[in-house]
């Protein structure tokens, strides 16, 4: 892998929440990379740490959470003429309220959140909130920023952008709000767009429209996307490379075809079995939740492989004792499972 194609490198990231009841190890050693212009899918059941990963990258992990270990390297194109040089920033080292991370947030790395209904301030117009993001990172006047905001709204397919810009969120549908959020996120041309389940709260038709829009925008603007979802159908459609997370760890990573046609980790296999196949009769449809058991209590992650209590292929005496190593089984295909040792 050529280094100058690298955009983000997450190494052994550990983010823990220190609650009165105990420590939640939300991220327990996460590794992955994102290349420039790549779409990385992040999948896993709810609670496995997808959103915490996104927040850790942006350094907006809420109290009482803290990054306790690991590195998040962001490779930025250098400002100088030597275009081969890159500027490397270790985001975990920055003061989360400092100017440096704030100049990265919303500018180099932008977020499209999960809840379009509540992610915009109810008492400010859409335009106010987008213009604010623009003037924060770009040297433009208010009037220019407004022009730019209208342009962005047009770009994301907002109907009547020059009127919608003065609307309040409650006057817009969920799909329109999410378009607004995307317009805001893209207004500074970020190198990385983190989309945290951007369509989960939307109906199926709107979801399809938003996904299509994001595909189009990525082709036009060429940013990398970290696409977080628990919907494997969306992964198949949107992403090139996939990481599968389970209890704060990446248990398998591969390109999207391999994940779907040659999954190795028992968790990935179980996850794939749980999606209803297209064309399957309702009557014949398997139970959606085909993974037995549920995610264990986050305060007490099981010893050994954290998936072993639910795993149908577990080896007693091994899986419940030893932490599985990260094994490379093919080019770009890694899994954390002793079966492939």
């Amino acid at each position, binding site marked *: 892998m050529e280094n100058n194609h690298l955009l983000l490198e997450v190494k052994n990231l550990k983010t823990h929440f220190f609650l009165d009841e105990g420590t939640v190890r939300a991220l327990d050693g996460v590794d992955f990379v994102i290349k420039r212009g790549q779409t990385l899918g992040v999948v896993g059941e709810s609670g496995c740490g997808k959103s915490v990963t996104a*927040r850790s990258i*942006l350094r*907006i992990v*809420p109290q009482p959470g803290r990054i306790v270990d690991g590195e998040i390297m962001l490779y930025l194109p250098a400002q100088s003429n030597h275009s081969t040089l890159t500027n490397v920033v270790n985001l975990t080292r920055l003061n989360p*309220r400092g100017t440096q991370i*704030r*100049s*990265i*947030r*919303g*500018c180099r790395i*932008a*977020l499209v*959140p*999960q*809840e379009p209904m*509540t*992610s*915009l*301030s*109810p*008492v*400010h117009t859409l335009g106010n*909130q987008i213009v*604010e*993001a623009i003037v*924060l*990172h770009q040297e433009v006047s208010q009037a220019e920023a407004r022009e730019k905001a209208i342009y962005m709204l047009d770009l994301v397919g907002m109907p009547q952008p020059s009127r919608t810009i003065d609307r*309040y969120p*409650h006057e817009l549908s969920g799909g329109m709000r999410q378009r607004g*959020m995307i317009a*805001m996120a893209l207004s500074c041309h970020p190198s990385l767009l983190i989309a945290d389940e951007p369509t989960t709260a939307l109906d199926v038709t709107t979801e399809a429209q938003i996904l299509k829009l994001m595909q189009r925008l990525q082709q036009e603007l060429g940013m990398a996307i970290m696409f977080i979802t628990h919907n494997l159908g969306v992964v198949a459609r949107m992403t090139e490379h996939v990481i599968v997370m389970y209890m704060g760890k990446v248990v398998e990573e591969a390109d999207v075809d391999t994940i779907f046609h040659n999954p190795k980790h028992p968790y990935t296999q179980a996850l794939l079995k749980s999606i209803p196949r297209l064309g399957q009769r309702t009557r014949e449809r398997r139970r959606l939740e085909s993974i037995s058991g549920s995610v264990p209590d986050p305060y007490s992650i099981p010893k050994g492989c954290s998936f072993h209590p639910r795993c149908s292929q577990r080896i007693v005496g091994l899986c419940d004792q030893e932490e599985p190593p990260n094994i490379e089984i093919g080019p770009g295909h890694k899994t954390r499972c002793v079966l492939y040792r």
Partner: protein
Amino acid sequence: MFGYIIRRVLLMIPTLIVISIISFVIIQLPPGDYLTSYAAQLSAQGDTIDAQGLKALEERYGLGQPIHVQYFKWVSGIILRGDWGQSMEWQKPVKDLIWERLALTILLSSVAILVSWFIAIPVGVYSATHQYSIPDYVLSVISFVGVGTPGFLLALIVMYLAMSQLNQSVGGLFSSEFLLAPWSLAKVVDMLKHLWIPVLIIALESTAGSIRTTRANLLDELNKPYVETARAKGLEEGKLIWKYPVRVALNPFFSTVGWSLASLISGQTLIAVVLSLQTTGPMMLRALMSQDMYLAGSFLLLLSSLTVIGTLVSDIILAWVDPRIRLRG
């Protein structure tokens, strides 16, 4: 918005009519008739009123006539002539008694509200954004004590301290030489000198509660996704807190502005009695106790009308600050 206001104002008219009837019935409830008591009151003071004077009063207020005639005379007097009746106790027209006191009360209360917000909002915001820190605990304890301390007790403590430590009397809004003097620049200056103690006491009485409200409302807002959106934009923490969640958390304050209109008249009566302030509260209390029917009735009517108007004002302010509220209803 404009149509909504017009409609609401029109709807207020029947409410106000009902209120005026109820107020009138209440002031008619005491046994005996007004004229007899009035004459008795006068003669008790060694005064007499001649038959002609009695006749004029009887004519003016329809006394001795059926009750609905009296009601119409009373109401039309207020609406057409600004004549709120005669105070038995003060021997003066009600209209000469209430307006100056009302103005003083409104001045005192609005300054007190502003002072209270000026203290409570920053403190509440600090507490919420530093939840479970030592300053938050200290402020919480102080404000709990504050919530539990009645204003009149605070007034008594301040008076005691001023007396014992500074050897200074803090009662009243004016020095004795200005009490009955007509308004002049010197009187205004004198009032401003006296004003700050009652302002502080009245303000502090509600400050503790406002701190709790700000803190609780803000804590509800701080974890909302829109705050995270603002943070993910790269906004500075202090700026984003004041622009987004604080702005939403303060909505309940705006909505209670209108209701405090009514509490202007009756509110802080205890503090006003303790500090002997020339505000409406003590006067209304006395009018009710001494069955001074026109004076008491005027206060009742003003109080209820201000409640109705205040509710409308609140609704309008709330709709103005919170775009989610649609003014169609």
